[in-house]
């Protein structure tokens, strides 16, 4: 079942690559603006052993990982607290509803003014942008906990904090994990965006900017390809982790194993 789906995806991607290559070969497009697909792929393969690119990729992935960790460390406790304290949640709700729709990239210029250190800047914008899905899912998850599960623990003499950590948190964990997965995609977008807008010494965004100014569109697109692949891969890893960890949730909500 799963293998068929993967196979279908591979066939789709290969078909797309072949089609673009065919258009490239037909000479319809000036290769100076859009290099052939085969050229991009060869450049992308070359990047794996390019120490400059590897340093840039490491910098971006580091910012992504630290930013995501920071997001979880801030947004999960905040979401638990807001989910458990409806009065506080109602008080901050208008603020959340105002801030959340602001396109996250729009805060990068502000962050540039506030942070002199490039890593701090990236972490700040990742934290801001990625927190929303984690926060919202944590609040929703905690509010959705079965009251009887909480009453069971209370009846055995557990206090409110124990109930929050031992029932609400595990119950909400599948929702929080989905939020983290969405946040992971946002974090990579914001990391590269911040590099593109704010500049700096290292990062995939920096590599892309430099390739563009050197007129190396093939390298530019090759780096972009790797950033995209990283997004796909991290998403797949997180999906697999969710499947393993939250089997009980899937069985319960009736979805297939």
């Amino acid at each position, binding site marked *: 079942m799963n293998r068929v789906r993967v196979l279908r995806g591979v066939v789709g991607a290969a078909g797309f690559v072949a089609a673009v290559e065919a258009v490239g070969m037909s000479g319809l497009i000036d290769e100076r603006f859009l290099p052939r697909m085969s050229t991009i792929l060869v450049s992308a393969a070359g990047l794996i052993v390019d120490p400059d690119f590897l340093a840039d990729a490491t910098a971006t992935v580091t910012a992504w990982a630290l930013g995501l960790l920071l997001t979880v460390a801030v947004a999960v406790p905040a979401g638990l607290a807001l989910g458990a304290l409806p009065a506080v949640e109602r008080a901050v709700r208008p603020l959340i509803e105002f801030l959340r729709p602001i396109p996250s990239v729009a805060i990068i210029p502000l962050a540039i003014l506030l942070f002199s250190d490039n890593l701090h800047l990236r972490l700040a914008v990742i934290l801001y942008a990625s927190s929303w899905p984690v926060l919202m899912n944590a609040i929703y998850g905690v509010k959705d906990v*079965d009251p*009887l*599960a909480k*009453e*069971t*623990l*209370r*009846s*055995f*003499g*557990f206090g409110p904090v*124990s109930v929050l950590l*031992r*029932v609400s948190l*595990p*119950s909400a*964990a599948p929702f929080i994990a989905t939020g983290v997965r969405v946040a992971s995609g946002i974090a990579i977008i914001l990391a590269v965006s911040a590099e593109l807008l704010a500049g700096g010494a290292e990062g995939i965004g920096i590599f892309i900017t430099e390739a563009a100014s050197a007129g190396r569109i093939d390298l530019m697109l090759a780096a972009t390809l790797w950033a995209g692949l990283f997004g796909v891969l991290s998403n797949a890893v997180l999906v697999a982790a969710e499947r393993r960890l939250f089997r*009980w*949730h899937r*069985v*319960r909500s009736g979805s297939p194993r």
Partner: protein
Amino acid sequence: MLKITDLVHSYGSHRVLDGVSLSVAEGELVSVVGPSGCGKSTLLRSIAGLVRPSGGSILLGGRPIDRIPDNLAIVFQDYSRSLFPWMTAMSNVALPLRRRGLDRRRSREAAMAALDQVGLADAGGKYPWEMSGGMQQRVSIARALAYRPALLLMDEPFGSVDAQTREDLEDLVLRVCAHQGMTILLITHDIDESVYVGDRVIVLTRSPARVAADLEVGLGGSRDQIATRQLDEFVRLRAEVGRLVRGGSTTATTVLEQH
């Protein structure tokens, strides 16, 4: 140990308990029967401090209930929702014991013993969603028994198990009550069961619930699934409770026994 006086409860304008009075002595096993939907679970939740009744008083050990009482365990009617699906049966049973200060090893041993008592010695590693309804129900019974509460509240605890297991569990509850000095309030819709396990049977009226009768069960301490059920006293009480549950009038004998 437990004294309930004129307990009244309404959900909104819907009156559920209409002046329920009863008392349970230390070490007693009292069964409560009543028609479906008459307010049995609400009564039990009030005792557990999970529902704040609209009126009347509940004294537990002489003190009014203002929060969830200490040293109490409940077997909920919705047993499957009261088990934690992210934990194995063993961990579900052991969790409350950790709060009692038992270390990991001792709480697991106690949990294992309780699972063994309900006939689930081999199922400790299973998750609730891997179990049948009857097995889940027994896990939640094991969890309450392992906790060794002073007061055990059970809400239709044997509804999903087969007849043979049900008899075993009834005898288990009788043993626990006798040997561990637990006080037990057991809600059931099964008239035979109410008489078989009870030191007393309290019959509630159709909604809104009042106490229709409070019957002493004169069957003595030791009960046997076959012999006890053949005794004249058992047959008489069963008929009596049956009539009362169906809304029949109180006969002369029950009026006498209410005092």
